């Protein structure tokens, strides 16, 4: 029976089915025990609302991800700068963004700062604010990865005649990229989930749509179970894609 313990596709498939069946049975038994009364027919009319919320969440997440990677990179680079004002600004900014709740940043950022600048685009402002918040976390992940590249690699780079920018481009960033991958993926998955907070500035993303749906129907779980599945439909492929990337860039150090 050793093949059942192997990494062959057949063994993985069989075990996946067994595990999914087991978890489903357990869930079913739990719901049966609390005698939950399902009301699926009430939520069906909201399907287009649900999809539009899902697309909003997707759009915000995608935009904020791209922006957060840029912010993370700039904050990391600024934090390593030898120019004191830049370094202080970047490290202070990182500490502030990581040290205060996203909720507060969204409220102040949208109702005070964006308002003062006369920007009345909740989607745009929300996406940028989320990008700043997650970018500060990414900055710390990137910093850890860059600092983990040892002194001997930096010396080798100097020895072959690389200038400082060349050292970053050819030696440090390619190696740091791989080391930052797992942490970055985790952070991007968090970002997708954190996007639900944008409802406080009036954006009807997925979670907000589900709240509306539940309120209209006096239901609870009929909205939240599809909600969980809709999030998984994005986060699982992202995780899987990151794993493939990790394998592609794997090398012994």
């Amino acid at each position: 029976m050793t093949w059942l313990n192997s990494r062959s596709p057949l063994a993985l498939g069989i075990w996946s089915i067994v595990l999914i069946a087991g978890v489903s049975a357990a869930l079913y038994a739990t719901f049966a025990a609390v005698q939950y009364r399902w009301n699926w027919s009430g939520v069906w009319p909201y399907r287009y609302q649900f999809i539009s919320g899902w697309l909003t969440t997707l759009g915000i997440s995608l935009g904020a991800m791209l922006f957060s990677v840029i912010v993370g990179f700039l904050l990391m680079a600024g934090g390593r700068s030898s120019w004191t004002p830049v370094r202080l600004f970047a490290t202070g900014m990182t500490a502030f963004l990581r040290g205060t709740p996203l909720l507060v940043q969204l409220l102040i950022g949208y109702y005070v700062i964006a308002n003062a600048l006369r920007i009345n685009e909740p989607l745009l402002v929300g996406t940028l604010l989320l990008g700043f918040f997650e970018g500060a976390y990414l900055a710390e992940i990137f910093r850890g990865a860059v600092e983990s590249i040892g002194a001997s690699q930096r010396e080798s780079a100097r020895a072959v005649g690389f200038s400082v920018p060349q050292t970053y481009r050819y030696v440090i960033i390619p190696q740091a990229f791989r080391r930052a991958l797992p942490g970055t993926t985790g952070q991007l998955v968090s970002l997708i989930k954190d996007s639900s907070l944008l409802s406080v500035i009036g954006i009807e993303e997925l979670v907000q749509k589900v709240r509306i749906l539940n309120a209209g129907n006096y239901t609870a779980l009929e909205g939240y179970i599809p909600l969980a599945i809709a999030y998984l439909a994005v986060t699982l492929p992202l995780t899987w894609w990151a794993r493939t990337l990790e394998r592609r860039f794997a090398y012994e150090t």
Partner: protein
Amino acid sequence: MKLEGINLTKTFGSHHALSGAEFCTSDDARVIALLGPSGGGKSTLLRVLGCLLVPEIGSVSMDGEVLPHDEVGALAERRKNGFVFQGYNLFPHLTALENIALPLRSVHGMTAPDACARAQELLERLGLSSHANKRPSQLSGGQQQRAAIARALAPKPRLLLLDEPTSALDPVMTGEVLDVIRELAESGQNIVLATHEISFARQVADWVVFLAEGKVVESSAATDFFTQPKNPLAKRYLEGLSKYR
């Protein structure tokens, strides 16, 4: 090649790695060995000679020309040299071929096909042509050091600086790397070699700089140094090391 160090001082924190080191080789020195007890300053002097480190005080002159102390000048100077260290020289994310070809392209301005051809030529010369597309982790320690030597030689350096290139290797791999260095020495390459391999230094070096506690205590032609060292420290060092080999 004539190398001269004048009052070289390099500190790390409060520790003097070099404190007023002075030496001058003959005009036609080719293979200069840096010898001395551990912590004596060999690696530091080697890096200063190769412009990887800039001394706080003092200067180095090479064939009468003083090496620059500013970063731009030092970078230009480094690009004329080749370095091999004890280990972990190669870039782990690049193949052996790319390790050699990348600096040729981005530092020395060669075109991609030229750089690739030159890299292949060097790998062949060092007996590594069948390993061109392997990453460092797929090579043995000796193969890694030979690839590192290939990378250092590829831009035809004026001076090759080797810092204990075999001290992380077992005896068999040490032998294969020392063979390569000896061939280079015999082919007329200018070399500075920091090492504890006394018998090897004796075979290839024509000048010896002996360091202890950050100072040069003896600088003389290799034949003189190995037959009749003037400094008592050097004498004891040689006797101590030749006891077991």
